[in-house]
């Protein structure tokens, strides 16, 4: 970027721009101002009207944190893989689906045998373990069959493969288990609420939040404190040097995919128990995209960033429609929950591709 810019090149519709600015810069700044203004106006209106009480906001916040924990768990898979291979594993949402969709049968048989009611915690642990295993298998196969041969290919090629693999996984599971929704059984102890003073938190939300935090602490320990975690970090830093230090790159990459897959599988069971709509073959698509947003939001390649980004996105998605869109006078704002998430995605990619915690990625990485 050391080229000298001539004044004549930086014009917008023929009007010369200030030195050092391009037309695109100007447009992006204008966009930034418009968006900030819309958010302030919307939020201001809603708050001034006093449409929701403090307790309602708090309830939205907790719901957002619970949903965000699930995004965060999936986002970790994107971040781990990106950190090591610098590629977006577009099919990761479907890895999440694979675990959740397969485990629903086990969960229902646990319910029928009464195991789920007599030993709920143990049963849930087993379910999470099983789903983690399924998702791990899918993720490892994906790496082995689809991604490994393409490691040196031009950038678009693995991306196309990932999109293809995503559809392949979705429609394989559709073929295997059918296209209908299958509901996870309800677990009795998740139905109550937990109260502190006047604040009530549904236990299901607390359960999601706590289990996600536990899994993330495990992951953090694995990456920061163990030998294989050190190897992962070294591969992420510089593959060639890592090889010289005796790290088996293929093994580390497979391990990374496996860990990401296991987290996604566990998230699938948590999601299934938490949300009553049931699971089907397409359930991975939206959480996948949103988790990707979360990963970018936190700074892709950065593990604490993915956790933070997930929570943040969950909260914004829960509060945003009610706070901003309502205030702007848009009817049935909750329909546009996903629009908020996708807008968030686009905005993060435009304004802060390095994320909250990430360092500036060099052009070749981004």
């Amino acid at each position, binding site marked *: 970027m050391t080229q000298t810019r001539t004044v004549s090149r930086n014009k917008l519709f023929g009007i010369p721009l200030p030195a050092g600015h391009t037309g695109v810069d100007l447009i992006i700044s204008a966009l930034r101002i418009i968006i900030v203004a819309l958010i302030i106006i919307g939020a201001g209106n809603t708050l001034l009207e006093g449409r929701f009480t403090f307790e309602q906001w708090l309830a939205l916040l907790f719901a957002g944190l619970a949903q965000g924990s699930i995004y965060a768990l999936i986002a970790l898979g994107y971040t781990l893989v990106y950190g090591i291979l610098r590629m977006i594993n577009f099919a990761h949402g479907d890895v999440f689906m694979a675990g959740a969709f397969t485990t629903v049968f086990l969960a229902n048989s646990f319910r029928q045998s009464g195991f789920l009611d007599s030993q709920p915690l143990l049963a849930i642990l087993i379910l999470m373990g099983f789903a983690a295993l399924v998702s791990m298998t899918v993720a490892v196969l994906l790496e082995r069959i689809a991604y*490994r041969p393409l490691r040196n290919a*031009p950038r678009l090629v693995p991306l196309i493969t990932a999109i293809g693999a995503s*559809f392949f*996984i979705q429609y394989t599971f559709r073929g295997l288990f059918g296209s209908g929704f299958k509901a996870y059984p309800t677990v009795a102890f998740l139905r109550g609420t937990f109260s502190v003073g006047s604040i009530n938190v549904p236990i299901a939300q607390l359960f999601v939040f706590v289990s996600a935090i536990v899994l993330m602490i495990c992951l953090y320990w694995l990456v920061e404190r163990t030998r294989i975690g050190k190897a992962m970090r070294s591969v992420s830093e510089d593959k060639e040097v890592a090889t010289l230090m005796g790290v088996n790159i293929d093994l580390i990459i497979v391990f990374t995919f496996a860990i990401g897959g296991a987290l996604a599988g566990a998230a699938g069971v948590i999601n299934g128990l938490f949300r009553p709509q049931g699971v089907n073959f397409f359930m991975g698509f939206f959480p996948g995209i949103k988790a990707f947003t979360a990963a970018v939001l936190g700074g892709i390649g950065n593990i604490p960033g993915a956790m933070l980004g997930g929570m943040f996105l969950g909260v914004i998605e829960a509060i945003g429609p009610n706070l901003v869109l309502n205030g702007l006078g848009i009817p049935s704002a909750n329909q546009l929950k996903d629009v908020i998430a*996708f807008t968030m995605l686009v905005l993060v990619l*435009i304004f802060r591709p390095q994320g909250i915690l990430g360092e500036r990625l060099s052009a070749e990485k981004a």
Partner: protein
Amino acid sequence: MSTLAANWRSVIRSGLIAGGVALYTALIGMLVAFDEREVVRNSFTLGQLLLVAPAVLVGWLSGRQSTQVPAGQRLLRGLVAGLVTSLPLLALMFVSSVVNLRTVLINVDRDLVRLISFDHGVGLSGALMLAGALGVSGILGAFVHLIPARLRHALLTALAWMLGAGILGELVRQLLSQFLDREALSWFLRRDTLKPEPAALLFVVVLLADLFWSWFRETRGRREGPAPRALQFTRVGGLAVLLLLLPLLVGSAISDVLTNIGLYILMGLGLNIAVGLAGLFDLGYVTNFAVGAYTMGVLTSTGVLGIENKMGVTVFNFWLVLPVSLLVAMFTGFILALPVLRMRGDYLAIATLGFGEIIRLLALSDWLKPIIGGAQGVLFIPAPNFFGVELIGPQRLYYIILGACLLAVFVSSRLNNSRTGRQWMAIREDEDVASAMGINTARSKLLAFTISAATGGVAGAIFAAKLGTIFPTSFNLLVSVNVLSLIIIGGLGSLPGIIVGALFLVGLPELLREFDEFRLLLYGTLMVTMMLARPEGLWPSAVYQREVRRGEERAPPQAGEQAA
């Protein structure tokens, strides 16, 4: 001795892989779904064909690997490979007789067992039938290598013709019914199924024709050099006449398929400018399609949402709105391109995917319902009117789409070889270098997005006029993915590739109804296998082929990376 053992090991391994594929097709329900279609009446079904196909293929591969060994042993290898292929299915047969798998795997039912045991049921006879059939298929696959080359070519061509005519029986009936009466037609087909006699006749005719043709070519000698000018003119003229008469020749049902293919070709040509030429990986192409369709819908509809009822303006008709749709789509494309100009590769893909989803959700929302109808969509969009002739029905709409496609092909091919096209390709190959060479990358990319959007807008507008009603559900991510997969599978940056891709990926599933359910599975599989085996596509452009293959010359794959 060790090479011999290795050979046998590879035979068994490929047999097991083929067996896995066969098991997979059984479990996802493909076998049973395809069993609905008889290829030749009372002889065999598409499902049976699919069942033995892996065994034939693996037999063929095993026979090919061992060129040094005597014929008997090659056939033996084919047999072993075929038998190994049957093992996973035998296991499935056994397990399904002990445990009820159907509660989890919905496709393991009585139909499947009936199919894979060739009506003999679970038990020894069924198992023997399955193993025997696949073993024989393996032998047949290996036997192909033992036939003399000329005869082999003729036999395979004849077989392909016969199977093609059988599988596409519906197409054959539609075509023949234009020329034959009911009586004559019933000699060929019963409903959509080829009868055995015409199948055998077709086989023999093609066989003889192919043999004659290869003899004829050999005695005449192959002519070298380009075809003379007169011949080229005849070819182009013939093609033009064929394209003009096509809807009259094939009838209404197939014309409908043709119009769908045409719309996808149109979108493919548009997306190709962004993805194929400029390397801008756009996963939200549906945005442009939706904008075009909604513009057409809202401006021409005679229903409550139409501008006619809202403002009393009645001047709008299809021909007036078509350029408006184009301009609106261009404008949206331009606006949406501005913020993403800085992004590259995967980030761009995800951001455009975000746009596509935002558009769909907005179209569905109650917020914009007063304008574009929300989930109820826009109804009563009139068909185009051409000097008093209402262009309703696929046979007439075909000509509009043909015209739009030809125009798009013309523009694309001119752009391909223009200064702008070369700038795009430079950006695709390396944006930094392109910028250093003095290309205004921002301007070039904006241009690519805008032109690409215009084509999508036109496709959307025609789509709206074709259907007469539009719903937000028609504008989902799958449209983008369909278009993207057809240009990738056809060959990025290649115009003939797009047409081949659209014929193959859009036409085939529409002609083969059983296929429709597995359409996206097919796309996914093709995209992955294409990228692994032939990343430049079916009909690649020369420049892109060089670019994709460049990496391989530089960095040969390491040992262990090749086996996939």
